[in-house]
């Protein structure tokens, strides 16, 4: 056991301990002091650094009882050399909305993970989960049950609804146009079964940002993107504007000229906004938080289809509902989401994201299927090609039209 405790030689990784940015190598070593899995991961990673290749086998389905997701199975391809990471499965733990914690809750997770796994984590994964990085198959159930004892549950993986996430929103942001935390908590609970048990053609992600700044990158990374916005004029506090002007903001150059709809005027004293043209991009508000704020009627735009490039190329979510009120119990939203999941769940091909599905069947047909009427806000512009599917045509009664 003695030299078992000995850390492997890692000349390459050691070079990553120096420098001003905090070092993940130090983290691994810190965990490795009293954790054999971390010791082996250190050695294995050093080998990858030397050989420039990963040492993991392909996938591997493991999980906890009754769940189809939440665990990413990993098996080392040279288990004899690194027995302690022969298994190195990751648990995805659903984070609390907005990533708020008490130290008490975090310490509880640390304690159980030290006992059940590598003692290594990611805070957080790109989808937002707490990542418990690596353990053996036998440890999964125990980890899970201790997690639940402490009020935590697994997040999503595989063809499920993935862990929904949201920006800090009303908890600490003056611009939140709806309660992102409450909303995300609500739908996370609403979809528990679909988060834990694969029932779809592929993954499905919800992300909610309280305004168009989109601080969780919902438009780029979520199948259903809920982004806060408003209706009605932007309230302008002229004194506040003047104060910013005094303190060195060039209102003309930095604000007015950068307005995408060019709907602002600044005469050196007064800032006027022709709100009918405002596209609610947030820029002027961002530039002068004390003086401007989102308009009176708050809600969200619902966009659909965002994803990474595999397979047809990356997709940015596009407008599905230009404006929706976002009040609990979110009945209208849930009805829409359920309808979308039904249609895509029914007709989507295996490994076809909803955005790819819509590309295949056509947005117009998709709208029909989910019962929405087409609106010009849904398009950047109408079609440029003349290839229109006119869905019905007349058959002539015997006539000499063709004579």
């Amino acid at each position, binding site marked *: 056991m003695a030299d078992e405790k000995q850390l492997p030689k890692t000349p390459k990784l050691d070079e990553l301990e120096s420098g001003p940015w905090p070092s993940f190598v130090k983290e691994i070593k810190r965990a490795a002091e009293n954790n054999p899995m971390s010791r082996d991961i250190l050695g294995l990673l050093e080998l990858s650094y030397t050989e420039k290749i*990963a040492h993991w086998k392909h996938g591997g389905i493991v999980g906890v009882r009754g769940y189809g997701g939440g665990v990413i199975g990993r098996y080392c391809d040279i288990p004899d050399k690194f027995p302690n990471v022969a298994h190195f499965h990751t648990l995805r733990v659903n984070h609390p909305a907005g990533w708020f914690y008490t130290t008490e809750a975090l310490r509880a997770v640390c304690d159980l993970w030290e006992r059940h796994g590598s003692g290594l984590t990611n805070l957080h994964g790109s989808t937002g989960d707490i990542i418990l990085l690596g353990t053996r198959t036998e440890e999964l159930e125990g980890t899970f049950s201790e997690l639940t004892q402490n009020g*935590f549950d697994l997040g999503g993986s595989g063809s499920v609804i993935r862990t929904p996430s949201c920006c800090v929103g009303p908890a600490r942001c003056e611009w939140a146009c709806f309660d992102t935390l409450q909303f995300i908590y609500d739908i996370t609970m609403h979809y528990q079964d679909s988060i834990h048990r694969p029932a779809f053609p592929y993954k499905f992600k919800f992300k909610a940002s309280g305004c168009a700044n989109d601080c969780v990158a919902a438009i780029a990374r979520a199948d259903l993107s809920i982004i806060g916005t408003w209706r009605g004029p932007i309230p302008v506090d002229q004194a506040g504007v003047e104060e910013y002007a005094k303190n060195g903001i060039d209102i003309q150059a930095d604000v007015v000229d950068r307005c995408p709809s060019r709907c602002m005027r600044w005469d050196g004293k007064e800032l006027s906004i022709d709100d009918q043209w405002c596209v609610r*991009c947030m820029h002027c508000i961002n530039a002068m938080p004390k003086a401007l704020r989102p308009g009176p009627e708050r809600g969200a735009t619902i966009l659909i289809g965002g994803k990474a490039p595999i397979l047809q190329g990356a997709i940015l979510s596009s407008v599905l509902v230009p404006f929706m009120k976002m009040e609990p119990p979110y009945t209208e939203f849930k009805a829409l989401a359920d309808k979308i999941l039904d249609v895509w769940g029914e007709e989507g091909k295996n490994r076809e994201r909803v955005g790819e599905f819509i590309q295949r069947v056509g947005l117009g047909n998709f709208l029909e299927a989910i019962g929405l009427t087409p609106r010009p806000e849904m398009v950047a512009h109408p079609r440029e090609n003349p290839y229109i599917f006119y869905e019905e045509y007349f058959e002539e009664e015997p006539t000499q039209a063709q004579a």
Partner: protein
Amino acid sequence: MAETTAERKTDIGPPHYQRFLPPIIKKNYGQWRYHEILKPGVMVHVAASGDKLYTVRAGTPRLLSVQTIREICDLADQYCGGYLRFTSRHNVEFLLTDPDKIEPLVADLRARGFPVGGMANAISSMVHTQGWIHCHTAATDASGIVKSLMDELIEYFSSLKLPAKLRLALACCLNMCGAVHCSDVAILGIHRRPPKVDHERLPKVCEIPNVVASCPTAAIRPTRIDGKESVEIIEEKCMFCGNCYTVCPALPINNALNDGLSIWVGGKVSNARHEPMFSKLAVPYLPNNPPRWPEVVAAVKNIVEVWAADARKFERMGEWIERIGWPRFFQKTGIPFTKQHIDDYRHADLTWKRSLHFTA
């Protein structure tokens, strides 16, 4: 395996966020009026009630040991009543009510090696992925490149001297976990050799029709190798996306000799000013050179500094490039423009220059 007597709970979902909100947030929830950036990594939010919430943001490696998490918790206990949060970019945020505690906390964080910053017109922590530490399809490591690059760019994390926010991302394969496809500057691990078909294993572990269907460029066709069903790959048609490997383990694509990195620029997510944009190819290939990837670090630093020197206030990378035009971007950065920069996928023709609008 740790036995637990309590009856098995499932589908309880995450803890309710309200349990974790500090009192000042509970009190002023949804009532924040404005914020101000006080200094790098420190801002104040002022509520309608007049209450002030001070946020101190610090960078982390994202890959954290439980020991370090506990250390962070100690700080939260000491300075802000045991409340803290993490951001969508993996920074940690301490939520203070007492302005006098800001300086001591900042000092303490620095002393423990946590850089304070990543706020407002700065580089924030990099959205990144698993790499060799946990993923089977990784063309490169993730944490190592992030560490090497952030060591070089730290001054832009801890200061406010950039013209606008700069969002960096890294993904270790084309699956692009994270935000590579919409980042100001992104690093992407790439494979450059078609998968090697393991004819022994393939028929046993993979559905041949699924494998064939998995290829976006129809580079895979069914075949028989000495009697056994298998597939062959038409190499000219393969662009190394790795999707067939995701679907079928018998098509390994990782390859030490050929895997490498590419660099992408000009993406953004926010709607502020310009609509969201995808990142575009800047550098098609750089060698995979651990432990510090000097070529990648130098290439990114160059792009960042050319932008920082040339962009106007509020101009994100993509907005700056749109103003000066791509010809000037390649000229100013000294990056050669090659055949590989020219799109040849689904929407290729729309990416060609269909007007005379370019600078002479």
